[in-house]
């Protein structure tokens, strides 16, 4: 219990730090610090927490269902599909509001992830490392389609802006849809044991009386929803879902339910820290968080790969 409490204190500290970081001084007695706090700081920090925790969770659920440590929304193309969906709404239904865009993005993310799952099942790729390779290429193909469409319809800037995950424009009135992922996270919490069992593989899961297909569909649905919402509001957050569950599993093993709070917290820490770096390093400007995540994430990922490699050799 104590470690968790300590972790919560750390999280609170980081959240506080995030609230007080910025160009405007919100503690100044005169001036409009309070307004800043309510209009941008709190929404921003809230969305950091929501996006960080939920993308880490999405990675965990996907890794369980594919029984593969290297799978997450950005390595199987879920994010790219969500982006394609977003683009399609810009082209076909330019009048639709953020909720409509989000719905389409979620549908695309869901369909794309299912396609990938079917792919995997049909070819039964044995090596765990081929799965992310195929996934990344799959994502690259989808994003090439997006880029082509964007060029055709002169939306290149939209897609470019979308692809860079960032929390810069987050303020009251723009970020509220993110609260949806809170609901999704609660559902994952409720279904946690079922995902754990599904993670043992189809045969075992079926043997112990689990409706395997249904659980996988539920999992893909929840992941797609999270990815769709986060992608539309914030953008792509690379490597987050990959690194967090792996770090947690390295320390704590594989029980989903007791790991879940740690996955949420670690997700929040990493996102908050990367955002702090991005915000302070070129004050008063900002570096989009996806770039910080991309640099940090790829370094951690490679370190993890080399580590598993060394273990397997020795």
């Amino acid at each position: 219990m104590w470690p968790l409490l300590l972790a919560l204190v750390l999280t609170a500290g980081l959240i506080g730090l995030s609230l007080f970081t910025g160009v405007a001084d919100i503690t100044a007695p005169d001036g409009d610090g309070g307004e800043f706090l309510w209009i941008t700081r709190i929404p921003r920090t809230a969305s950091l927490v929501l996006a960080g925790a939920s993308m880490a969770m999405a990675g965990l659920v996907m890794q369980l269902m594919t029984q593969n440590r290297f799978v997450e929304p950005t390595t199987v193309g879920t994010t790219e599909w969500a982006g394609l969906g977003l683009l399609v709404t810009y082209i076909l239904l330019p009048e639709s509001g953020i909720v409509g865009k989000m719905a389409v993005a979620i549908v695309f993310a869901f369909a794309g992830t299912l396609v990938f799952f079917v792919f995997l099942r049909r070819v039964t790729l044995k090596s765990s490392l081929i799965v992310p390779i195929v996934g990344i290429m799959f994502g690259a193909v989808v994003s090439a389609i997006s880029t082509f469409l964007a060029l055709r319809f002169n939306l290149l800037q939209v897609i470019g802006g979308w692809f860079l995950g960032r929390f810069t424009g987050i303020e009251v009135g723009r970020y509220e849809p993110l609260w949806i992922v809170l609901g999704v996270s609660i559902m994952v919490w409720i279904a946690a044991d079922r995902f754990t069992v599904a993670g043992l593989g189809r045969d075992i899961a079926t043997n112990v009386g689990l409706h395997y297909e249904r659980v996988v569909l539920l999992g893909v649905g929840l992941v797609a929803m999270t990815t769709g919402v986060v992608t539309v509001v914030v953008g792509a957050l690379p490597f987050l879902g990959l690194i967090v569950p792996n770090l947690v599993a390295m320390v704590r093993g594989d029980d989903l339910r007791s790991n879940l709070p740690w996955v949420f917290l670690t997700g929040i820490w990493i996102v908050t820290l990367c955002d702090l770096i991005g915000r302070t390093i070129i004050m008063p400007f900002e570096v989009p968080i996806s770039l910080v995540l991309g640099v940090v994430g790829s370094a951690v990922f490679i370190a993890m790969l080399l580590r598993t490699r060394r273990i397997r050799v020795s």
Partner: protein
Amino acid sequence: MSADLGIRPSARTTRSFADPAHRRRYRFALAALIVGAVVITALLLCWDNPYVPFSERWLRISRMRVSGVLVVAVVTFCQAFATVAFQTATNNRIITPSIMGFESLYVLIQTAIVFFFGVAGVSGFDPFTRFLLQSALMVVFAVLLYSWLLSGRFGNLHVMLLIGIILGTGMGALSTFLQQMLDPNEFDVLAARLFGSITNANTDFLWFVVPVCAAVGGTIWMLSKRLDLIGLGRDISTNLGLNHKRQVMLVLTLVAVLSAMSASLFGPMTFLGFLVATLAYAIADTYDHRLLLPMAWLLGYVALGLAYFLLKHVFTLVSAATIIVELIGGLVFLVVILRKGRL
């Protein structure tokens, strides 16, 4: 496409072709590609030129288009030769220099130089010296990094491939990160160098790039017989008296030079090399590099040239030419992996 990429018993003979029919097939394919390349070149140079053929104005427009054609030719040459040689050196048909992040490395080095030395520091050199320095740095780093990666300590192919892909992504993110931290003036200077397409390719140094590519490509061509040996794998080629490691390093260096040239001219392209190498193996159906290399180049030239022509004159979307080729290349990559079910 006969995508049977497995080793056929017939291909193990020392001759390049299994039988006369095979040779005829190769020659026919080569001839068809040459005709295709000539037609594409003619179309690219002459199509939609409003003036009287061979009048002065007509010639002027055609001459302006020559640099576009040259860019297509040089880029496909670099990609084809680099990829085929790289695949042989690493003894694998899936990985290519671009998938392993060679070009992201180039972009990163370019960015890092501007970032650490500033525009003032960089413009102290004349542009050509800078270009040379950057290319040299790229070659050195690439050889160091990839000889470490490929040197068997992490010799598991999948680990290596995944590390390569992630390295590419990471270096891409790092470059963009550094670019965001540059001030806008510096960024403009850099951006002019980095984002290429056929129409705004960086043609300033074409006079230098073309001979270098010709020399390096020529060297690879001369090394064909040695490449054939390297392709047999470390053990067999060592048994046959080849210093395998040294030869692989040599090939990697040449590949790094070609990749640097292609990236400096054009910007990163991931799947073009893969596409042409895979198709060349499927069509030529041989392991003789002397036959493979020109086939791969011609295929690349016809593919990129055709995409460029169609998108320029039929769909008026010229900047999408590379995207289309990339898209097709990516799809072929997926199909190859999925059909084999393994790497």
